[in-house]
């Protein structure tokens, strides 16, 4: 499975990658675009080569920490409409605790380490880069 995609994410594809008869607990996280302040969509861009390498490193770390778990993630790039998923993570493990923990580990690592950026598009035609530290840089239509 490609870690980065420009197509809608289908969670069933992720489930098929991680589920198995020896893994009784599966945890799925999806992040979807919110309709904050007239936002109609978010345009995601990435340093793709590094993002791919970083995802491989994050999944490798999860595998080392929870050897019996299987974890996969897919991040979507391009313009994504409100309500659609920008990221999905699936973690399956013999028991639920490890599935939840591995899934949580991966999304937190993504937030801290993935070289991905987002530009909000609003109904009035303006756009702004999203800075998680709180600053907003707005541009005209």
């Amino acid at each position, binding site marked *: 499975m490609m870690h980065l995609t420009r197509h809608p994410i289908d969670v069933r594809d992720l489930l098929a990658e991680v589920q198995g008869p020896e893994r009784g607990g599966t945890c799925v996280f999806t992040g979807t675009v919110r309709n904050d302040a007239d936002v109609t969509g978010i345009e995601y861009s990435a*340093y793709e080569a590094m993002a791919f390498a970083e995802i491989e490193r994050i999944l490798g770390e999860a595998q080392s920490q929870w050897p019996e778990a299987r974890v996969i993630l897919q991040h979507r790039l391009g313009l994504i409409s409100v309500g659609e998923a920008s990221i999905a993570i699936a973690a399956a493990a013999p028991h639920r605790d490890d599935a939840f923990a591995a899934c949580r580990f991966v999304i937190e690592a993504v937030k801290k380490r993935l*070289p991905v950026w987002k530009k909000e598009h609003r109904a009035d035609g303006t756009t702004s880069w999203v*800075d998680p530290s709180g600053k907003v840089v707005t541009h005209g239509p």
Partner: protein
Amino acid sequence: MGKVSVRFFARYAELAGCTWSAVNVETPATVADVIARVREVFPGTKGLPPQPLAALNQRQVRLDALVNEGDEVALLPPLAGG
């Protein structure tokens, strides 16, 4: 002098006016030296924060990391994945 590739992304690409370039620096240099050279060559990048996030050859590094000829330095706006 050695040539170092520099990549800009998202808002920083808008400030620089390009997504990729190369600068000449005395090598070995640090990432901070490369950024200082970038500020001279691309006036728009004066709007970069004093200590931007940076990656060297696709790994996040501190600004005192050593850079050699042929390396790639990427300037990363605040990360917003997920």
